């Protein structure tokens, strides 16, 4: 049977029970939890950085590690607020018995939401209800995981869509890593095994601007030198990418307008259909001529791109060859110089001008490779 969401309604002269009032609270909490779960992606919303202070005591140097104030949304849609800095407990770490031998080991640090019932004096007309729970404190737990346990974060149990706040289950959110040495923390990290901190996101199919523009920023508007993207209707429609200044204005380095005109202030690399890309240099016998940036051997093999290689033998000086008398020279003759696919074949023969010796050696060439990528649909 499908779960029904019940919204409380009230009528004149109705006597309100505690369950009626709780339902008001729970209805709002559950709706917000579902919003957090499905219109956002779980993660850190603000703050919660790990910080480390250098400390020294009888046992030596160590780090005092704290979590800074901040907020997160967990995978059940619960909001966790850390209102003031909290020091990480070495005792809790030690009791978990997760230490393993080795150096530079990173142990994940997690936060999870926890509800705690609190008995506070509440107005009551019934003497026998004194001492009953009247508040729920929305607390959090800080715990540590075994090395590699951060890889299981996405395997946590999600809730059915009809569920509101999961008041009992826990959901771990990674806030960093610590190093552990001699029963003390000795370092902090933000990444291990390619797993870094996860920040809250937005899940949406359609995002619309409200003032004729839409801006995506990689950092807050007031932090300069951060990448940002803007779509607006300037010049009849433009998309501009660049770095924001200290006022949040985007200084564009790449612009494309609604007519498809592209303006890039930097280099454009990669396979450009219909274009010719060229690379050149010097190369010795036996190596493969390197392809221009963005062109791959697979493109050549499939016929998507073609390459034209030109090799010119490089007439060198005779440094490194056996010493000859003052009036005798080494004279270079090219035996072969060609490309076999992209492979350079260059062999040269050095002959003494007095005819008393000769050497055959690998040669060196100047190369130029031109690649042409076919435009889609052919040209």
């Amino acid at each position: 049977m499908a779960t029904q969401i019940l919204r409380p309604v009230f009528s004149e002269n109705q006597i309100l029970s505690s369950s009626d009032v709780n339902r008001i609270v729970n209805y709002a909490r559950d709706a917000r939890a579902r919003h957090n779960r499905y219109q956002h992606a779980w993660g850190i919303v603000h703050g919660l950085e790990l910080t480390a202070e250098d400390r020294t005591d009888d046992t030596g140097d160590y780090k005092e590690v704290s979590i800074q104030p901040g907020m997160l949304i967990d995978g059940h849609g619960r909001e966790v607020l850390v209102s003031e800095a909290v020091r990480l407990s070495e005792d809790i770490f030690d009791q978990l018995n997760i230490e393993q031998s080795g150096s530079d080991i990173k142990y994940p640090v997690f936060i999870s939401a926890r509800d705690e019932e609190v008995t506070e004096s509440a107005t009551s007309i019934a003497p026998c209800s004194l001492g009953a729970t009247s508040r729920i404190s929305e607390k959090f737990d800080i715990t540590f995981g075994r090395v590699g346990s951060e890889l299981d974060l996405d395997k946590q149990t999600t809730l059915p869509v009809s569920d509101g706040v999961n008041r009992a289950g826990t959901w771990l959110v990674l806030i960093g890593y610590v190093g552990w040495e001699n029963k003390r923390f000795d370092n902090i990290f933000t990444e291990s095994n390619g797993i870094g901190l996860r920040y809250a996101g937005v899940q949406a199919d359609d995002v619309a601007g409200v003032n004729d523009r839409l801006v995506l920023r990689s950092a807050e508007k007031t932090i300069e030198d951060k990448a940002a993207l803007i779509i607006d209707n300037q010049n009849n429609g433009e998309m501009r990418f660049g770095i924001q200044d200290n006022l949040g204005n985007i200084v564009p380095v790449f612009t494309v307008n609604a007519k498809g005109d592209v303006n890039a202030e930097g280099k454009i690399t990669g396979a450009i259909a219909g274009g010719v890309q060229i690379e050149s240099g010097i190369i010795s016998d036996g190596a493969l001529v390197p392809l221009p940036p963005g062109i791959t051997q697979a493109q050549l093999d499939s016929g998507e791109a073609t390459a034209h290689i030109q090799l010119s033998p490089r007439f060198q000086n005779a440094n490194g060859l056996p010493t000859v008398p003052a009036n005798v020279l080494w004279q270079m003759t090219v035996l072969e110089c060609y490309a076999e696919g992209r492979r350079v074949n260059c062999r040269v023969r050095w002959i003494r001008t007095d005819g008393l010796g000769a050497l055959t050696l690998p040669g060196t060439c100047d190369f130029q490779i031109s690649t042409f990528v076919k435009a889609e649909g052919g040209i």
Partner: protein
Amino acid sequence: MDAMHLIHFQRTGHVLGALTVLTQNDSVMIDDVAEQGFYLRAGPDLIPNTRVLINRDHLALLSQDFRSSVMNRPQNYAVTDGLAEEQDDRGIVVVVDGVTVDITLPSFVSSATEVWCLIEGPMIEETIVRPITVPNASVLGSENLSLPSGTYTIVIFAPGYTVQFFTESF
């Protein structure tokens, strides 16, 4: 032209080839220039024109400042501590008889030294690449190596000496 790239035998640093690239000189990788291995010319005075394929797995790329001497004759050099250094070109003696491989260096080594040996021939399916240890204060290294009768091309990568080529028949 600021930088050059040296394709070298990873175990010993012997340089096999060199190149410069004009437009993307700072992003050349070994797969760009030796994805299918490196053809090293071998044989007495390169005649007959024998080539030995050095597998990609044995190769590495090092970038350093351009030096025309290294560009012109890369195989006279080996990479040591990140720099190409010219190697001793005195002759190494190699004897392969189908039972053992004996390598005699021109000078005594001051510590046990691994000389890498690459053997290729029509009688074996896969190129043999293996180290032969020359003990401390010795010139001779010897290892058992069973090979069927035939003609083999042998490439020797001895630390301190230029890469050298031999053809042995037994």
